[in-house]
C-alpha cells in the first residue's frame, strides 16, 4: 500500500501546482487523524496498534480522501470525513479486509451530503484570472477561516460549470467563453488526470493492480460519452476527452475502484464491476446534482461486487 501512496505523487504534485497547498494540507491533516483514529480503535479492539499501523492502509485512506476533498475545506470537515472513513466504514465492519464499502469514499460521501456548500467549492486553477493562495493563507483559511480574500480564489469545478451551462451553449461556444479550458479538458484538471494516469500505469507495471477494472471503467465512460456527445450541440454531454480527463476520472479508475477489498475479484467480474462504476459515474456526473459521480458509483459497485463475484467465479460459471 506504500507503493500506491507513492503512485499518487504525480497527481498530487499537479493538484498542488494548479490548486495551491490545500491538497497537501488536507493529506497531512487527514493522515494525522487517520493514524490517531486507527490506533485508538485498534487499542479498543485489543489489537497491537504498532503492528497494524505498519500496513499503511489507514494512511492510504487518508491520502485518497485528502486528494478527493476540495483544497479549501475547513479543518473540522476533514476530521468528520476521516472519522467516518476509518472508524465507521472500516473498523465497525470488522477492520481491514472486512469492510463492505470503500472507506475513503464513505468518508467523502458523508461530508458531501452533509456539507454540500463546503464540498462544492474548489480553489480556482492557476491561470484563470488568479493564482492559488500561498501556503500561509491556505493554512489560515483551513484552520481559522480567517482569510476574507478566500472568495476570490474559489468557485465551482469545471464539471459543475459545464452542467449549469448545458442546454444554452454548444460545446465550442462553451470552451470559447470559459476561461478555465485547458489543453484537453478543464484547466489544471487535465494535468492532474495525466498525473494519476501516470501513477496508475506504474501500478499496473508493478502488478499491484490488475488491468481489468481501470480499462473497463475508462472504456465504459468513453463509450457513453461518445453516445451522448451529440456532435457538440448545446445538449451534448461533453466530449470523451472532457470526461476522461476532468475532475476525478483517472483517480477513480486507477486508485479508488481498484481497492481489492471492496471490488469484485474474479477477472470477468472485474470487467463487469468496472463497467458498472464507469456507467454510474457518467450518469451521476452528467444528470445528477453532485460535483462528481465517482464516489457514489464506487459505493454502488461495492454493493454489487459479491453478486458479480458469485456469478463469475468457478470454471463452470458459463453453465450457470
Amino acid at each position, binding site marked *: 500500500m506504500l507503493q500506491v501512496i507513492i503512485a499518487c505523487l504525480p497527481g498530487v504534485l499537479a493538484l498542488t501546482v494548479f490548486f495551491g497547498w490545500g491538497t497537501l494540507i488536507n493529506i497531512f491533516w487527514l493522515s494525522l487523524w487517520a493514524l490517531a483514529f486507527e490506533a485508538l480503535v485498534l487499542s479498543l479492539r485489543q489489537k497491537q496498534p504498532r503492528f497494524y499501523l505498519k*500496513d499503511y492502509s489507514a494512511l492510504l485512506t487518508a491520502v485518497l480522501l485528502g486528494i478527493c476533498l476540495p483544497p479549501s475545506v475547513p479543518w473540522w470537515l476533514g476530521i468528520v470525513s476521516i472519522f467516518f472513513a476509518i472508524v465507521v466504514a472500516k473498523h465497525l465492519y470488522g*477492520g*481491514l*479486509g*472486512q469492510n463492505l464499502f470503500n472507506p475513503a469514499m464513505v468518508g467523502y460521501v458523508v461530508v458531501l451530503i452533509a456539507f454540500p456548500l463546503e464540498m462544492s467549492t474548489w480553489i480556482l486553477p492557476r491561470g484563470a484570472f488568479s493564482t492559488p493562495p500561498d501556503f500561509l493563507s491556505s493554512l489560515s483559511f483551513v484552520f481559522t477561516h480567517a482569510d476574507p480574500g478566500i472568495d476570490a480564489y474559489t468557485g465551482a469545478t469545471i464539471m459543475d460549470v459545464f452542467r449549469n451551462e448545458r442546454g444554452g451553449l454548444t460545446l465550442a461556444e462553451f470552451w470559447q467563453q470559459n476561461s478555465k479550458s485547458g489543453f484537453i479538458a478543464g484547466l489544471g484538471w487535465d494535468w492532474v488526470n495525466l498525473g494519476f494516469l501516470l501513477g496508475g500505469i506504474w501500478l499496473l507495471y508493478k502488478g499491484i493492480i*490488475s488491468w481489468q477494472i481501470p480499462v473497463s471503467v475508462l472504456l465504459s465512460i468513453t463509450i457513453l460519452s461518445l*453516445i*451522448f456527445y*451529440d456532435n457538440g450541440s448545446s*445538449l451534448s454531454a461533453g466530449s470523451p476527452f472532457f470526461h476522461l480527463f476532468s475532475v476525478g476520472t483517472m483517480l477513480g479508475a486507477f486508485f479508488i475502484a481498484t481497492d*481489492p*477489498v471492496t*471490488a469484485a*475479484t*474474479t*477477472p470477468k467480474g472485474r470487467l463487469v464491476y468496472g463497467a458498472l462504476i464507469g456507467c454510474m459515474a457518467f450518469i451521476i456526473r452528467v444528470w445528477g446534482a453532485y460535483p462528481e459521480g465517482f464516489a457514489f458509483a464506487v459505493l454502488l459497485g461495492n454493493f454489487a461486487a*459479491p453478486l458479480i*463475484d*458469485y456469478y463469475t*467465479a*468457478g*470454471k*463452470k*460459471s458459463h453453465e450457470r
Partner: protein
Amino acid sequence: MSLFGGIVLALLLLALFCGLTLAYTAQKFSQQDTSLVDQINALLPQTQCAQCSYPGCRPYAEAIAQGEAINKCPPGGEQTISLLANLLDQEKVALDSNYGQQGPVKKAFIREQDCIGCTFCIQACPVDAIVGAPQQMHTVIADECTGCELCLPPCPVDCIDLIALPETELSLPAKSLTEQACIRCGLCVDACPVDLLPQQLYSFIQGKAYEKAASHHLEDCIECGLCHAVCPSHIPLVQYYQLGKSVLQHQDEQFQLAHHAQERFQQHEKRLARLNAEQERQRQARSKLAANAAAQRELIRAALSRARGRQQGDQQ
C-alpha cells in the same frame, strides 16, 4: 440525433434488456412445484421414532404444515429446527425437552443369547430393520437402523441395547504463529487455477456456512495449495477447504441415510397396509362363508321341518 431521441432509444433498449432478462430468469430459476409437506418432510431426520408424538416423520410434517410447533424433533435437534425455521420463515426456538434430548446417533443391538424369539420388536420397527422368526433368534441390520428406540419397550427380556456411534470430530485448523487475519487482498483469486473465490470460501467455512461454500463451488477446489502459497497472512486455506468438504460430505451422507430410511418406512407402511387389506379380505371371505353356511343350515332346517310335518300328516 437529438438528446430526446437518444433517451427514448436508451429506454427502449433498457426495457428490451429487462424483459429478456426477466423471461430468461423466470425460465431458468423456476421453482419445482413441491408441496410444503414434502419440503418439510425432506428436512426431518426420518428416524420415524415418533418422539414428537406423531406416528412418523411425515405425519409430523403434515402437522407442521398445519401450524404445529417445529421444536419437537429430538433426533434432528438444533440443525433441523434452524432449517425448518428458515423454510417456514419462523423464529428459531430451542428444542422442547418434553419430547427428549438431542444425543449422539445410536444403533440398536440385540444380545442374541438372551433373545427368546417373541417377534415383538420386529413388529415395532418402523423401517423393518430387524430380521427373525417366531422361536428363532432376531438380529438388527445395523445399516438400516435409525436408532428410534421403538423396539425397546416391547422386548419382554430387555435384550436390546442402544450403542452410540463414535462421532468424527470436525474442527477448524489450529492457528499457527505466523497466521494473520484475512485482509481480502484477492491474491488467492488470481492464483486459483479453477477460478474460485478462495477468500469467500474461507470466510464461509470459518463461519460454518457450509451450504454457502457449496453454492460457491467448494467441490471444484482441487486442493492444489496455490492460494495458501500466495497468502500474505499465511492462512492454511486448503485445510479449511478440506474441512468444509468433509462436513458437506457428512451432511450428504446423512441426507442419503434419511432418504433411505424414509423409503423403507414407506415400504413398511405399504406392507402393513397390504397385510391389513389381505386380512380384511380373508375375514370378509370367512364371514361370507359363514353366512352361506347359516343360510344352508336354515334351508336344511326348513326342509327337515317340512318333511317332519309331512310325516306327521301321513301318520294321521
